[in-house]
């Protein structure tokens, strides 16, 4: 039975400690032991029974998800947020430079006509869309 306890511990080792985890582990172990006893009552050797119980347990990933560990989601989230933030900063600096250039050309060469607002509006779509992309990740959607 020690092998069974060891196996259950191994199965759950990636899951961060919590009260819920303990309860589920207890339950899993209890039911596995019961299965082993049942198999032994039906004439299996202890070793065989334990192996059968372990093999038939299946893939733990689904249970991990239910216990609130989705490896991709928890790891990807911060780096993605950082990435989006960088995109946003880049778009702000970029648009400031472009708008600055337009303003300079406007006032230097054709000061009598104010036209730099048109390209300014066009360029502003860039940081605006980046801002919402960043917000989307920040709010965890």
């Amino acid at each position, binding site marked *: 039975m020690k092998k069974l306890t060891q196996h259950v511990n191994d199965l759950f080792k990636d899951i961060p400690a919590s009260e819920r985890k303990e*309860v*589920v582990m*207890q*339950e*899993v*172990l*209890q*039911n*596995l*032991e*019961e*299965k082993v*006893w*049942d198999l032994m009552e039906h004439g299996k050797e202890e070793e065989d029974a334990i192996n059968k119980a372990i093999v*038939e*347990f*299946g*893939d*733990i*990933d*689904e*249970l991990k*998800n*239910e*216990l609130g560990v989705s490896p991709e989601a928890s790891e990807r989230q911060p780096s993605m947020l950082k990435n989006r933030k960088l995109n946003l900063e880049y778009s702000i600096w970029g648009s400031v430079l472009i708008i600055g250039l337009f303003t300079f050309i406007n006032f230097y060469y054709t000061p009598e006509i104010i036209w730099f607002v048109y390209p300014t509006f066009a360029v502003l779509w860039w940081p605006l869309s980046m801002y919402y992309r960043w917000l989307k990740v920040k709010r965890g959607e």
Partner: protein
Amino acid sequence: MIRSDIIRGHLDSIILRLILEKDRYGYDISKEIAHRTNQRFEIKEATLYAVFQRLEKKELIESYFGSESKGGKRKYYRITTLGKAYFKETVAEWEELKDVINIFMEGLD
């Protein structure tokens, strides 16, 4: 042997049905499923506990610790009123689904 991906969406109902009949614990349920289906469908334990977690979170079932058995305390599940209502709904849904799928699966030789 039934493929697990095809039955997946109905696992909740299968387990609710078994708990509806009487309060049960994990191994009891997996044994009962295998027994009733003549071993044509056997639920993996890992899947079973995931379903328990999900159903409990949705408050369709609740758990309590039973008497001491050989290993330790068995964790039993009982269905809630919400669970019963939900199950009734899925039964009606299933009837509908069966009819719809049958339209396309039957009558071809």
